[in-house]
Protein backbone atom coordinates (compact mmCIF):
# COMPACT_ATOMS: atom_id res chain seq x y z
CA UNK A 1 0.00 0.00 0.00
CA UNK A 2 1.23 3.49 -0.74
CA UNK A 3 0.07 7.06 -0.91
CA UNK A 4 -3.15 7.38 -2.91
CA UNK A 5 -4.71 4.46 -1.02
CA UNK A 6 -7.98 4.92 0.79
CA UNK A 7 -8.11 4.60 4.57
CA UNK A 8 -10.77 4.57 7.24
CA UNK A 9 -9.76 6.35 10.45
CA UNK A 10 -11.99 5.27 13.34
CA UNK A 11 -11.75 7.29 16.53
CA UNK A 12 -13.12 10.19 18.50
CA UNK A 13 -12.63 13.85 17.71
CA UNK A 14 -9.50 15.25 19.34
CA UNK A 15 -5.84 16.09 18.96
CA UNK A 16 -4.68 12.50 18.41
CA UNK A 17 -7.18 12.00 15.58
CA UNK A 18 -6.32 15.34 13.98
CA UNK A 19 -2.58 14.69 14.18
CA UNK A 20 -2.82 11.20 12.74
CA UNK A 21 -5.07 12.26 9.85
CA UNK A 22 -2.77 15.17 9.06
CA UNK A 23 0.31 12.92 9.05
CA UNK A 24 -1.37 10.37 6.78
CA UNK A 25 -2.79 12.95 4.37
CA UNK A 26 0.66 14.50 4.10
CA UNK A 27 1.74 11.11 2.74
CA UNK A 28 -1.06 11.22 0.14
CA UNK A 29 -3.44 8.80 1.84
CA UNK A 30 -7.14 9.57 1.46
CA UNK A 31 -8.72 9.42 4.92
CA UNK A 32 -12.40 8.81 5.72
CA UNK A 33 -13.14 9.58 9.38
CA UNK A 34 -15.61 7.46 11.36
CA UNK A 35 -16.61 8.87 14.74
CA UNK A 36 -16.78 6.06 17.33
CA UNK A 37 -18.92 8.23 19.59
CA UNK A 38 -21.76 8.17 17.02
CA UNK A 39 -23.69 5.35 15.43
CA UNK A 40 -21.24 3.81 12.99
CA UNK A 41 -22.56 0.80 11.02
CA UNK A 42 -24.38 2.77 8.32
CA UNK A 43 -21.46 5.17 7.90
CA UNK A 44 -19.02 2.29 7.52
CA UNK A 45 -21.30 0.49 5.06
CA UNK A 46 -21.58 3.64 2.95
CA UNK A 47 -17.79 4.04 2.84
CA UNK A 48 -17.17 0.39 2.03
CA UNK A 49 -19.80 0.27 -0.72
CA UNK A 50 -18.45 3.39 -2.40
CA UNK A 51 -15.13 1.75 -3.25
CA UNK A 52 -12.15 -0.26 -2.10
CA UNK A 53 -10.71 0.48 1.33
CA UNK A 54 -7.04 -0.48 1.72
CA UNK A 55 -6.37 0.35 5.33
CA UNK A 56 -8.01 0.93 8.70
CA UNK A 57 -6.56 2.93 11.57
CA UNK A 58 -8.34 2.40 14.90
CA UNK A 59 -7.71 5.15 17.43
CA UNK A 60 -8.88 4.01 20.86
CA UNK A 61 -10.61 6.92 22.56
CA UNK A 62 -8.61 8.70 25.30
CA UNK A 63 -10.13 8.95 28.80
CA UNK A 64 -11.62 12.44 28.24
CA UNK A 65 -13.70 11.16 25.31
CA UNK A 66 -14.97 8.34 27.52
CA UNK A 67 -15.87 10.55 30.48
CA UNK A 68 -13.22 8.71 32.51
CA UNK A 69 -11.12 10.25 35.24
CA UNK A 70 -8.48 8.56 37.34
CA UNK A 71 -10.41 7.66 40.47
CA UNK A 72 -10.30 5.08 43.25
CA UNK A 73 -11.53 1.73 41.91
CA UNK A 74 -13.93 1.37 44.83
CA UNK A 75 -15.68 4.64 43.94
CA UNK A 76 -16.42 3.38 40.40
CA UNK A 77 -19.37 1.24 39.32
CA UNK A 78 -19.93 -1.29 36.57
CA UNK A 79 -21.71 1.35 34.48
CA UNK A 80 -18.40 3.27 34.29
CA UNK A 81 -16.53 0.19 33.06
CA UNK A 82 -19.14 -0.62 30.44
CA UNK A 83 -18.97 2.93 29.06
CA UNK A 84 -15.25 2.39 28.43
CA UNK A 85 -15.78 -1.04 26.91
CA UNK A 86 -18.62 0.19 24.67
CA UNK A 87 -16.29 2.48 22.73
CA UNK A 88 -12.74 1.21 23.22
CA UNK A 89 -13.65 -2.47 22.82
CA UNK A 90 -17.02 -3.04 21.15
CA UNK A 91 -16.85 0.14 19.02
CA UNK A 92 -13.40 -0.79 17.74
CA UNK A 93 -14.41 -4.43 17.17
CA UNK A 94 -17.51 -3.40 15.25
CA UNK A 95 -15.58 -1.24 12.78
CA UNK A 96 -12.82 -3.86 12.51
CA UNK A 97 -15.30 -6.62 11.75
CA UNK A 98 -16.91 -4.71 8.87
CA UNK A 99 -13.60 -3.61 7.35
CA UNK A 100 -11.99 -7.06 7.79
CA UNK A 101 -14.80 -8.77 5.91
CA UNK A 102 -14.31 -6.23 3.08
CA UNK A 103 -10.52 -6.72 3.06
CA UNK A 104 -10.75 -10.52 3.10
CA UNK A 105 -13.00 -10.31 0.05
CA UNK A 106 -10.29 -8.34 -1.76
CA UNK A 107 -7.58 -10.50 -0.21
CA UNK A 108 -5.54 -7.52 0.90
CA UNK A 109 -5.51 -4.83 3.53
CA UNK A 110 -3.76 -3.58 6.62
CA UNK A 111 -5.16 -2.61 10.00
CA UNK A 112 -3.42 -0.59 12.70
CA UNK A 113 -4.86 -0.04 16.19
CA UNK A 114 -3.47 2.77 18.31
CA UNK A 115 -3.56 1.94 22.02
CA UNK A 116 -2.14 3.49 25.18
CA UNK A 117 0.78 2.17 27.20
CA UNK A 118 -1.60 1.67 30.15
CA UNK A 119 -2.38 -1.66 28.47
CA UNK A 120 1.17 -2.89 29.02
CA UNK A 121 0.90 -2.52 32.75
CA UNK A 122 -2.42 -1.77 34.43
CA UNK A 123 -2.68 1.66 35.99
CA UNK A 124 -4.45 2.36 39.31
CA UNK A 125 -7.71 4.25 38.91
CA UNK A 126 -7.78 3.60 35.14
CA UNK A 127 -8.82 0.01 35.69
CA UNK A 128 -11.29 -0.66 32.87
CA UNK A 129 -9.35 1.62 30.52
CA UNK A 130 -6.16 -0.40 31.17
CA UNK A 131 -8.08 -3.63 30.57
CA UNK A 132 -9.59 -2.37 27.30
CA UNK A 133 -6.21 -1.35 25.88
CA UNK A 134 -4.49 -4.58 26.94
CA UNK A 135 -7.43 -6.41 25.38
CA UNK A 136 -7.10 -4.73 21.99
CA UNK A 137 -3.33 -5.32 22.01
CA UNK A 138 -3.88 -9.05 22.55
CA UNK A 139 -6.80 -9.12 20.10
CA UNK A 140 -4.35 -7.82 17.49
CA UNK A 141 -1.88 -10.66 18.10
CA UNK A 142 -4.62 -13.24 18.01
CA UNK A 143 -6.41 -11.77 14.98
CA UNK A 144 -3.16 -11.60 13.00
CA UNK A 145 -3.08 -15.38 12.96
CA UNK A 146 -6.64 -15.78 11.69
CA UNK A 147 -6.48 -13.15 8.93
CA UNK A 148 -2.96 -13.79 7.58
CA UNK A 149 -4.19 -16.43 5.14
CA UNK A 150 -6.73 -13.92 3.82
CA UNK A 151 -3.99 -11.48 2.89
CA UNK A 152 -4.73 -9.03 5.69
CA UNK A 153 -2.13 -7.71 8.15
CA UNK A 154 -3.00 -6.31 11.56
CA UNK A 155 -0.66 -4.52 13.97
CA UNK A 156 -0.81 -2.14 16.83
CA UNK A 157 0.89 0.97 18.09
CA UNK A 158 1.46 1.85 21.72
CA UNK A 159 1.31 5.57 22.33
CA UNK A 160 2.21 7.28 25.57
CA UNK A 161 -0.75 8.04 27.82
CA UNK A 162 -1.02 11.81 27.43
CA UNK A 163 -4.03 12.61 29.58
CA UNK A 164 -2.81 10.67 32.61
CA UNK A 165 0.97 10.47 32.09
CA UNK A 166 3.20 8.30 34.23
CA UNK A 167 4.07 9.71 37.62
CA UNK A 168 6.59 8.65 40.21
CA UNK A 169 5.74 7.49 43.73
CA UNK A 170 5.68 11.12 44.93
CA UNK A 171 3.16 12.01 42.22
CA UNK A 172 5.61 14.00 40.09
CA UNK A 173 5.17 13.93 36.32
CA UNK A 174 7.75 11.67 34.71
CA UNK A 175 8.96 12.67 31.29
CA UNK A 176 9.60 9.91 28.75
CA UNK A 177 13.33 9.17 28.24
CA UNK A 178 13.20 10.76 24.77
CA UNK A 179 11.51 13.87 26.15
CA UNK A 180 8.06 15.14 25.16
CA UNK A 181 7.07 13.92 21.71
CA UNK A 182 4.67 15.18 19.07
CA UNK A 183 1.93 12.60 19.83
CA UNK A 184 -0.33 12.76 16.73
CA UNK A 185 2.49 13.16 14.17
CA UNK A 186 4.61 10.48 15.90
CA UNK A 187 1.73 8.02 15.93
CA UNK A 188 0.79 8.98 12.34
CA UNK A 189 4.32 8.26 11.09
CA UNK A 190 4.35 4.81 12.73
CA UNK A 191 0.87 4.08 11.35
CA UNK A 192 1.96 5.11 7.85
CA UNK A 193 4.90 2.70 8.07
CA UNK A 194 2.75 -0.22 9.29
CA UNK A 195 0.20 0.42 6.52
CA UNK A 196 2.84 0.63 3.80
CA UNK A 197 4.33 -2.09 1.61
CA UNK A 198 7.57 -1.70 3.52
CA UNK A 199 5.85 -3.46 6.41
CA UNK A 200 4.47 -6.24 4.18
CA UNK A 201 6.02 -8.97 6.33
CA UNK A 202 4.90 -7.48 9.64
CA UNK A 203 1.76 -8.72 11.35
CA UNK A 204 0.66 -9.19 14.95
CA UNK A 205 3.36 -6.84 16.14
CA UNK A 206 3.33 -3.81 18.35
CA UNK A 207 5.38 -0.63 17.85
CA UNK A 208 5.92 1.44 20.97
CA UNK A 209 6.06 5.17 20.16
CA UNK A 210 5.81 6.39 23.74
CA UNK A 211 9.34 7.85 23.70
CA UNK A 212 10.50 5.09 26.01
CA UNK A 213 7.80 5.81 28.60
CA UNK A 214 6.77 2.16 28.75
CA UNK A 215 10.25 1.13 29.86
CA UNK A 216 10.13 2.83 33.20
Amino acid at each position, binding site marked *: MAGGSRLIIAGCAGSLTDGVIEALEARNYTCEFVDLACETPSVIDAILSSGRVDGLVNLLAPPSNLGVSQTD*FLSQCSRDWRRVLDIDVYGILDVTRAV*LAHMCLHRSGSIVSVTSNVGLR*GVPGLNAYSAAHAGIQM*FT*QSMAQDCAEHGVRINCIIAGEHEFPARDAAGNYREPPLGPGKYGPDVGAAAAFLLSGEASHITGSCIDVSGGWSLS
Partner: protein
Amino acid sequence: MTAQRPLALVTGGAGAIGSAIAAALVRDGWRVALADREAKALEAVAQKLGAINAPYHEALDVCDEESVRSFVSRVADDNRGLQGLATAAGGGPAFGPRALFWETGLDDWRLNVETHLVSVMVTCHAALPHLIKAGDGVILNLASGAGLRGGPPMSRQKYGEIYSLAKAGLIAFTQSIALEFAPRGVRANCIAPGRAENGRRPVADLTRMAVDEERREPGSSRMSPLGRFGRADDMGEAAAFLMSTRAGYITGSCVDVSGGVRLH
Protein backbone atom coordinates in the same frame (compact mmCIF):
# COMPACT_ATOMS: atom_id res chain seq x y z
CA MET B 1 -9.43 -21.05 71.79
CA THR B 2 -7.77 -21.13 68.37
CA ALA B 3 -8.11 -18.34 65.84
CA GLN B 4 -10.66 -18.92 63.11
CA ARG B 5 -9.19 -20.21 59.86
CA PRO B 6 -9.27 -17.63 57.03
CA LEU B 7 -12.08 -17.75 54.48
CA ALA B 8 -11.70 -17.48 50.69
CA LEU B 9 -14.53 -17.06 48.23
CA VAL B 10 -14.08 -19.16 45.05
CA THR B 11 -16.19 -18.49 41.94
CA GLY B 12 -16.49 -21.29 39.41
CA GLY B 13 -15.93 -23.45 42.48
CA ALA B 14 -17.60 -26.51 40.97
CA GLY B 15 -15.52 -26.49 37.79
CA ALA B 16 -12.42 -28.63 37.34
CA ILE B 17 -9.97 -25.80 38.07
CA GLY B 18 -12.16 -23.97 40.62
CA SER B 19 -12.73 -27.09 42.69
CA ALA B 20 -9.02 -27.95 42.52
CA ILE B 21 -8.21 -24.45 43.81
CA ALA B 22 -10.77 -24.90 46.61
CA ALA B 23 -9.32 -28.28 47.57
CA ALA B 24 -5.74 -26.94 47.63
CA LEU B 25 -6.85 -23.96 49.74
CA VAL B 26 -8.60 -26.23 52.25
CA ARG B 27 -5.49 -28.39 52.51
CA ASP B 28 -3.48 -25.22 53.20
CA GLY B 29 -5.74 -24.28 56.09
CA TRP B 30 -8.34 -22.06 54.41
CA ARG B 31 -12.08 -22.44 54.55
CA VAL B 32 -13.93 -21.73 51.28
CA ALA B 33 -17.20 -20.17 50.15
CA LEU B 34 -18.12 -21.60 46.78
CA ALA B 35 -20.16 -20.07 43.97
CA ASP B 36 -20.97 -21.76 40.68
CA ARG B 37 -23.74 -21.79 38.11
CA GLU B 38 -24.02 -25.59 38.21
CA ALA B 39 -26.05 -26.25 41.36
CA LYS B 40 -25.69 -30.03 41.37
CA ALA B 41 -21.95 -30.07 40.80
CA LEU B 42 -21.58 -27.31 43.40
CA GLU B 43 -23.47 -29.38 45.97
CA ALA B 44 -21.19 -32.33 45.28
CA VAL B 45 -17.99 -30.29 45.71
CA ALA B 46 -19.28 -28.67 48.91
CA GLN B 47 -20.22 -32.07 50.30
CA LYS B 48 -16.86 -33.57 49.42
CA LEU B 49 -15.02 -30.75 51.21
CA GLY B 50 -17.39 -30.92 54.17
CA ALA B 51 -19.40 -28.20 55.91
CA ILE B 52 -16.52 -27.28 58.22
CA ASN B 53 -14.21 -26.58 55.29
CA ALA B 54 -16.85 -25.23 52.89
CA PRO B 55 -19.40 -23.51 55.14
CA TYR B 56 -21.03 -21.49 52.34
CA HIS B 57 -22.05 -22.27 48.79
CA GLU B 58 -24.49 -20.72 46.39
CA ALA B 59 -25.59 -21.46 42.83
CA LEU B 60 -25.30 -18.22 40.90
CA ASP B 61 -24.30 -16.78 37.53
CA VAL B 62 -21.25 -14.52 37.89
CA CYS B 63 -22.68 -12.28 35.16
CA ASP B 64 -25.58 -11.42 37.47
CA GLU B 65 -24.07 -8.53 39.40
CA GLU B 66 -26.73 -8.45 42.13
CA SER B 67 -26.31 -12.16 42.96
CA VAL B 68 -22.55 -11.80 43.17
CA ARG B 69 -22.73 -8.74 45.41
CA SER B 70 -25.31 -10.26 47.73
CA PHE B 71 -23.40 -13.56 48.07
CA VAL B 72 -20.15 -11.73 48.87
CA SER B 73 -21.78 -9.55 51.52
CA ARG B 74 -23.82 -12.39 53.02
CA VAL B 75 -20.68 -14.53 53.40
CA ALA B 76 -18.52 -11.68 54.72
CA ASP B 77 -21.19 -10.52 57.18
CA ASP B 78 -22.04 -13.98 58.48
CA ASN B 79 -18.38 -14.98 58.78
CA ARG B 80 -17.40 -11.55 60.13
CA GLY B 81 -14.75 -11.13 57.46
CA LEU B 82 -13.35 -12.38 54.19
CA GLN B 83 -9.63 -12.89 53.62
CA GLY B 84 -9.34 -14.32 50.11
CA LEU B 85 -10.93 -14.35 46.66
CA ALA B 86 -10.25 -16.72 43.77
CA THR B 87 -12.16 -16.18 40.52
CA ALA B 88 -12.29 -19.26 38.32
CA ALA B 89 -15.66 -18.98 36.55
CA GLY B 90 -15.76 -18.99 32.76
CA GLY B 91 -15.32 -21.09 29.66
CA GLY B 92 -18.16 -23.15 28.23
CA PRO B 93 -20.59 -21.30 25.98
CA ALA B 94 -19.09 -17.92 26.97
CA PHE B 95 -16.01 -18.84 24.94
CA GLY B 96 -18.10 -18.10 21.86
CA PRO B 97 -18.84 -19.81 18.57
CA ARG B 98 -16.18 -21.62 16.56
CA ALA B 99 -16.32 -19.05 13.81
CA LEU B 100 -14.08 -16.47 12.20
CA PHE B 101 -14.14 -13.15 14.03
CA TRP B 102 -15.90 -11.32 11.21
CA GLU B 103 -18.71 -13.88 11.30
CA THR B 104 -19.43 -13.16 14.98
CA GLY B 105 -21.23 -10.20 16.52
CA LEU B 106 -21.77 -7.94 19.48
CA ASP B 107 -23.81 -10.48 21.49
CA ASP B 108 -20.99 -13.05 21.26
CA TRP B 109 -18.38 -10.47 22.25
CA ARG B 110 -20.41 -9.17 25.16
CA LEU B 111 -21.09 -12.62 26.62
CA ASN B 112 -17.37 -13.43 26.45
CA VAL B 113 -16.12 -10.12 27.90
CA GLU B 114 -18.85 -9.93 30.56
CA THR B 115 -18.03 -13.47 31.73
CA HIS B 116 -14.25 -13.35 31.64
CA LEU B 117 -13.55 -9.71 32.50
CA VAL B 118 -16.48 -7.64 33.81
CA SER B 119 -17.74 -10.34 36.20
CA VAL B 120 -14.28 -10.53 37.75
CA MET B 121 -14.17 -6.74 38.13
CA VAL B 122 -17.57 -6.89 39.86
CA THR B 123 -16.48 -9.71 42.19
CA CYS B 124 -13.23 -7.93 43.11
CA HIS B 125 -15.14 -4.68 43.61
CA ALA B 126 -17.56 -6.41 45.99
CA ALA B 127 -14.85 -8.29 47.90
CA LEU B 128 -12.18 -5.58 48.17
CA PRO B 129 -13.66 -3.63 51.12
CA HIS B 130 -13.66 -6.88 53.13
CA LEU B 131 -10.17 -7.87 51.96
CA ILE B 132 -8.85 -4.44 52.97
CA LYS B 133 -10.43 -4.84 56.39
CA ALA B 134 -8.71 -8.24 56.73
CA GLY B 135 -5.36 -6.47 56.62
CA ASP B 136 -3.65 -9.05 54.42
CA GLY B 137 -6.36 -9.89 51.88
CA VAL B 138 -5.47 -11.71 48.69
CA ILE B 139 -6.97 -12.03 45.21
CA LEU B 140 -6.22 -14.70 42.63
CA ASN B 141 -7.72 -14.31 39.16
CA LEU B 142 -7.72 -17.15 36.67
CA ALA B 143 -6.30 -15.71 33.44
CA SER B 144 -5.19 -17.82 30.50
CA GLY B 145 -2.23 -18.37 28.24
CA ALA B 146 -4.54 -16.82 25.64
CA GLY B 147 -4.15 -13.52 27.47
CA LEU B 148 -0.36 -13.74 27.24
CA ARG B 149 0.14 -15.15 23.77
CA GLY B 150 -2.94 -14.44 21.69
CA GLY B 151 -4.99 -17.44 20.67
CA PRO B 152 -5.72 -20.18 23.14
CA PRO B 153 -3.69 -21.96 24.09
CA MET B 154 -1.10 -21.82 21.32
CA SER B 155 -0.68 -19.99 18.09
CA ARG B 156 -2.19 -22.64 15.86
CA GLN B 157 -5.57 -22.65 17.48
CA LYS B 158 -8.11 -20.38 15.87
CA TYR B 159 -11.16 -18.39 16.87
CA GLY B 160 -9.77 -17.15 20.17
CA GLU B 161 -9.61 -13.40 19.53
CA ILE B 162 -12.24 -12.24 21.98
CA TYR B 163 -11.23 -14.72 24.68
CA SER B 164 -7.64 -13.48 24.32
CA LEU B 165 -8.89 -9.90 24.53
CA ALA B 166 -10.86 -10.57 27.71
CA LYS B 167 -8.05 -12.49 29.43
CA ALA B 168 -5.38 -9.91 28.51
CA GLY B 169 -7.75 -7.28 29.87
CA LEU B 170 -8.10 -9.32 33.05
CA ILE B 171 -4.31 -9.45 33.51
CA ALA B 172 -4.01 -5.65 33.08
CA PHE B 173 -6.97 -5.12 35.41
CA THR B 174 -5.33 -7.33 38.05
CA GLN B 175 -2.10 -5.30 37.74
CA SER B 176 -4.09 -2.09 38.17
CA ILE B 177 -5.72 -3.23 41.41
CA ALA B 178 -2.47 -4.81 42.66
CA LEU B 179 -0.80 -1.39 42.45
CA GLU B 180 -3.82 0.46 43.76
CA PHE B 181 -4.47 -1.72 46.81
CA ALA B 182 -0.91 -2.70 47.75
CA PRO B 183 -0.75 0.22 50.22
CA ARG B 184 -3.90 -1.18 51.83
CA GLY B 185 -2.38 -4.62 52.32
CA VAL B 186 -4.11 -6.48 49.50
CA ARG B 187 -2.17 -8.62 47.02
CA ALA B 188 -3.61 -9.55 43.59
CA ASN B 189 -2.14 -12.04 41.12
CA CYS B 190 -3.15 -14.19 38.15
CA ILE B 191 -2.34 -17.67 36.97
CA ALA B 192 -2.39 -18.43 33.25
CA PRO B 193 -3.03 -22.08 32.40
CA GLY B 194 -2.07 -23.40 28.99
CA ARG B 195 -4.09 -26.27 27.62
CA ALA B 196 -5.45 -27.83 30.77
CA GLU B 197 -8.22 -30.21 31.69
CA ASN B 198 -11.64 -28.72 32.33
CA GLY B 199 -15.08 -30.01 33.18
CA ARG B 200 -15.77 -31.12 29.63
CA ARG B 201 -12.31 -32.35 28.74
CA PRO B 202 -10.20 -34.51 31.04
CA VAL B 203 -6.47 -34.90 30.32
CA ALA B 204 -7.10 -38.22 28.50
CA ASP B 205 -9.38 -36.44 26.01
CA LEU B 206 -6.86 -33.66 25.46
CA THR B 207 -4.14 -36.21 24.79
CA ARG B 208 -6.37 -38.09 22.33
CA MET B 209 -7.17 -34.80 20.54
CA ALA B 210 -3.48 -33.98 20.24
CA VAL B 211 -2.74 -37.38 18.68
CA ASP B 212 -5.56 -36.83 16.16
CA GLU B 213 -4.36 -33.33 15.34
CA GLU B 214 -0.81 -34.55 14.89
CA ARG B 215 -2.04 -37.19 12.44
CA ARG B 216 -4.06 -34.61 10.46
CA GLU B 217 -1.40 -31.94 10.54
CA PRO B 218 2.09 -33.21 11.42
CA GLY B 219 4.00 -30.88 13.73
CA SER B 220 0.84 -29.37 15.15
CA SER B 221 0.79 -31.18 18.47
CA ARG B 222 0.19 -28.76 21.32
CA MET B 223 1.70 -30.88 24.03
CA SER B 224 3.80 -28.82 26.42
CA PRO B 225 7.60 -29.19 26.59
CA LEU B 226 6.97 -31.10 29.83
CA GLY B 227 5.26 -33.74 27.71
CA ARG B 228 1.70 -33.58 29.02
CA PHE B 229 -1.29 -31.32 29.37
CA GLY B 230 -2.16 -29.32 32.46
CA ARG B 231 -4.07 -30.96 35.30
CA ALA B 232 -6.56 -29.04 37.37
CA ASP B 233 -4.36 -29.83 40.38
CA ASP B 234 -1.44 -27.98 38.74
CA MET B 235 -3.63 -24.86 38.75
CA GLY B 236 -4.84 -25.51 42.29
CA GLU B 237 -1.25 -25.70 43.58
CA ALA B 238 -0.15 -22.51 41.79
CA ALA B 239 -3.23 -20.65 43.01
CA ALA B 240 -2.86 -21.83 46.60
CA PHE B 241 0.82 -20.83 46.59
CA LEU B 242 0.06 -17.30 45.34
CA MET B 243 -2.67 -16.97 47.97
CA SER B 244 -0.41 -18.17 50.78
CA THR B 245 1.91 -16.10 52.96
CA ARG B 246 4.79 -17.85 51.21
CA ALA B 247 3.97 -15.54 48.30
CA GLY B 248 3.73 -12.52 50.60
CA TYR B 249 6.04 -10.40 48.41
CA ILE B 250 4.33 -11.31 45.10
CA THR B 251 1.70 -8.99 43.71
CA GLY B 252 0.58 -7.96 40.21
CA SER B 253 2.20 -10.99 38.68
CA CYS B 254 0.78 -13.47 36.20
CA VAL B 255 2.24 -16.93 36.65
CA ASP B 256 2.33 -19.02 33.49
CA VAL B 257 1.26 -22.58 34.37
CA SER B 258 1.49 -24.08 30.90
CA GLY B 259 4.35 -26.57 31.18
CA GLY B 260 6.59 -24.25 29.18
CA VAL B 261 4.31 -23.83 26.17
CA ARG B 262 5.26 -20.19 26.04
CA LEU B 263 8.84 -21.11 25.26
CA HIS B 264 8.25 -22.71 21.89
